[in-house]
């Protein structure tokens, strides 16, 4: 019981200031490698495309592109941190967008307020998430399979509702509001920022967030600590569904349509962003900041590619290589942060 016995003091970083050490160990700094990767990417963009890359308009374009998949990815971060996975995000988004743009909904929205369309989208998303959560928590279906089933089911339903046609948003207020800007930033970028900040607070500052880590890290320990693991799991999937509803509203504003093809393969993009951001696919460790970085890296990448007029195949190969480099960079910094 010598004071040193049980917990040796954390070894000091050789030649590093205390502040630096602290930063390296904090959640944000585990993403240092990613920040560097993103900066490198921007440098490449600036060198190859100059002002076309560095212009305000282009930055806004990147942000707008990042917004929709960003919101989806933040919901995904919660699910993955809690030890699950959600393959149905794209399909839920599609279903929400279709449902919110049906004739009936739009008629109602025109009669009362466009907020009805928004509520519809959010409700549909949350309801799908609820089904996912119930199947997984109480039906004990593996998340991969349950959400795969939801992927097939929700997209099929979206097709049936829409008759495989693209539905145009005709409620003027809706597009004006969500397609507009506020203080120079597009509304949907604001929404992304809000969801990201709210997600960060929820994950890092609330009991809900702590319990998410516990459920994902060691579900049995969480249960023994008196946490209602099943109920919490359901909440996580509802949250993911809700994020898809929000993303559906954003995409509806951006494309002025609802369609059963919206969000195709978003599940892969979102999981990729989350995982590259540093969230463990096995649960228990997650970072919203990393996810946002992951999303930014992917969107900036495709922007830089397009600015440089690269062929799609070359883009694909380059993307593969860059992903690996980014992760190796991150790894380097992460291990240095823990082993220093």
């Amino acid at each position: 019981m010598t004071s040193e016995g049980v917990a040796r003091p954390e070894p000091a970083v050789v030649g590093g200031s205390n502040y630096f050490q602290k930063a390296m160990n904090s959640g944000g700094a585990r993403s240092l490698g990613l920040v560097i990767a993103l900066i490198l990417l921007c440098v490449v963009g600036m060198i190859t495309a100059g002002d076309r890359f560095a212009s305000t308009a282009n930055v806004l374009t990147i942000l707008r592109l990042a917004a929709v998949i960003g919101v989806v990815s933040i919901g995904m971060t919660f699910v993955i941190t809690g030890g699950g996975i959600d393959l149905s995000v794209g399909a839920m988004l599609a279903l929400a967008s279709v449902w919110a743009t049906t004739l009936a909904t739009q008629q109602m929205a025109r009669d009362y307020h466009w907020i009805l369309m928004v509520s519809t989208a959010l409700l549909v998303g949350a309801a799908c998430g609820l089904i996912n959560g119930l199947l997984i928590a109480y039906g004990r279906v593996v998340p991969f399979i349950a959400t795969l089933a939801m992927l097939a089911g929700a997209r099929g339903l979206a097709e049936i509702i829409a008759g495989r046609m693209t539905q145009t948003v005709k409620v003027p207020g809706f597009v004006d509001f969500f397609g507009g800007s506020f203080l120079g930033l597009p509304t949907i970028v604001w929404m992304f920022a809000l969801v990201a900040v709210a997600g960060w607070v929820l994950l890092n500052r609330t009991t809900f967030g702590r319990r998410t880590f516990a459920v994902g890290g060691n579900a049995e320990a969480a249960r023994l600590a008196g946490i209602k693991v099943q109920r919490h799991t359901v909440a996580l999937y509802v949250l993911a569904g809700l994020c898809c509803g929000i993303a559906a509203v954003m995409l509806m504003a951006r494309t002025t349509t609802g369609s059963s093809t919206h969000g195709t393969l978003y599940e892969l993009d979102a999981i990729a962003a989350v995982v590259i951001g540093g969230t463990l696919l096995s649960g228990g460790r997650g970072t919203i900041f990393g996810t946002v970085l992951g999303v930014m890296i992917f969107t900036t990448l495709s922007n830089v590619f397009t600015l440089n007029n690269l062929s799609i195949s070359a883009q694909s190969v380059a993307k593969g290589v860059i992903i690996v480099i980014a992760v190796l960079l991150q790894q380097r910094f992460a291990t240095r942060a823990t082993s220093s």
Partner: protein
Amino acid sequence: MSSELLRMTGIVKQFPGVRALDGVDLDVRSGEVHCLLGQNGAGKSTLIRVLSGAHQPDQGTIVVDGNEASFGSPADAMKLGIATIYQELDLVQDLTVAENVFLGHEPARFGFTNRTEIVGRTRELLRGLGHGEIPPGRRVGALPAAGQQVVSMARALSRDARLIIMDEPSAVLDSEEVANLFRVIRGLTERGVAVVYISHRLEEIREIGDRVTVLKDGATVATGLPAKETPTTELIRLMTGRSIEYVFPPRRAIPPDAEVVLKVEGLSRPREFENIGFEVRAGEVLGLAGLVGSGRSEILETLYGARRAATGEVYVDGRRLRPGQVAAAVRAGIGLAPEERKSQALLLDESVYRNITVSSLARFATTGFLNRRAERDAAEELTTALDVRPAGVDRPVRNLSGGNQQKVVLARWLLRDCRVLLLDEPTRGVDVGARAEIYALVRRLAESGVAVVLVSSEVEEVLGLADRVVVLREGRAVFSGPADEIDEHRVLDLVMEGSVV
């Protein structure tokens, strides 16, 4: 002291193929330390899991404060003031110490965790446990096992419980830590808190316990025995159904010309240990003594190749080992029974026999194809010899009790016919009977020419079993010599003061 807090009667718990509890009775009074004794697999952990709401019993009643209670979940038990320190550390590795302590009952406002409060209260609790040096903000996964045990304790205390259940809390603690734990327990009982205490170390029972309940094969065989007065032989007889000589087997003199099997030279790893060197001859048992955190496990892991040495060499039978490669060490004839058996040794979902044969697969294979009958037979033989219970080599290891899991790990290396056997806390969580058998086994192995390196937090065990002893303090050897040249007090002095001999 006398008011009855809890009464369990006729508790039955059936698992697939095993009746873990078969009519257990237990009564606990406030302010007492009630000890649960029983062999490995007797059902102690299962009983307390029933009591803490983690398992639902098939039959039986639980009465708390005179009212019948039913625990559908751990939360129900906690509401009645029952807190538990589980045998398997039940912490979330990626959360901080403070977050773990208050997990499930975080002080919060509108859902926002009050982080200053949980950090402050955790610091207080840790200080009360004598471990103010553990930073509440540290990730639990970065703490050694003993530190995690302290966190588990802090967590139980954070609940303001009336009954605290401790399932083998001393297993990962050294003697200093155990003394500290007892101080805490006494503080609790003075305030009227009841403690259910499980341990395989009878001397601890004698020191801290008030009354004893003995379980055997899932049933109560004796209850309410006075802890101080009941003779040890009687307790052992109740537990095992026979009497066991609880002594160390006699040493046999090692011939001075016995060949050196394991030689370690100048082994160092920065911030873990420095310049460690020793030789172990065939038939010799070398004991490493030291406090928790003195680097004993790291030394074993390094010479086994699981960690890469910064400097230094390891020789087996005169041949230098390739550093940092476990496979090379295993091929050279080294075996390691690691400290954390669940995370480092066992394939929990695999059957017993597969866990035993995993390091000797080549022996059972012709051109890569396994002879599973031979595998099973070999495993069967070993589990019978080691008395692993319940019998049956096809059971998943996960469902074995802690002590029996340890035997499975030992069986793995017995099967391989090692030249060198590294044992890190081999008797942790092992019952008295099995412990005596493990001692006998280690001696028998040594006599058959194996070089054994033994790490144990029980100084008595190191001194009783080893031929030669190395005492470590903060990663440095402060004593090295024959076991009969040093006694328990001297060892404790050395590890505390570090006066170089």
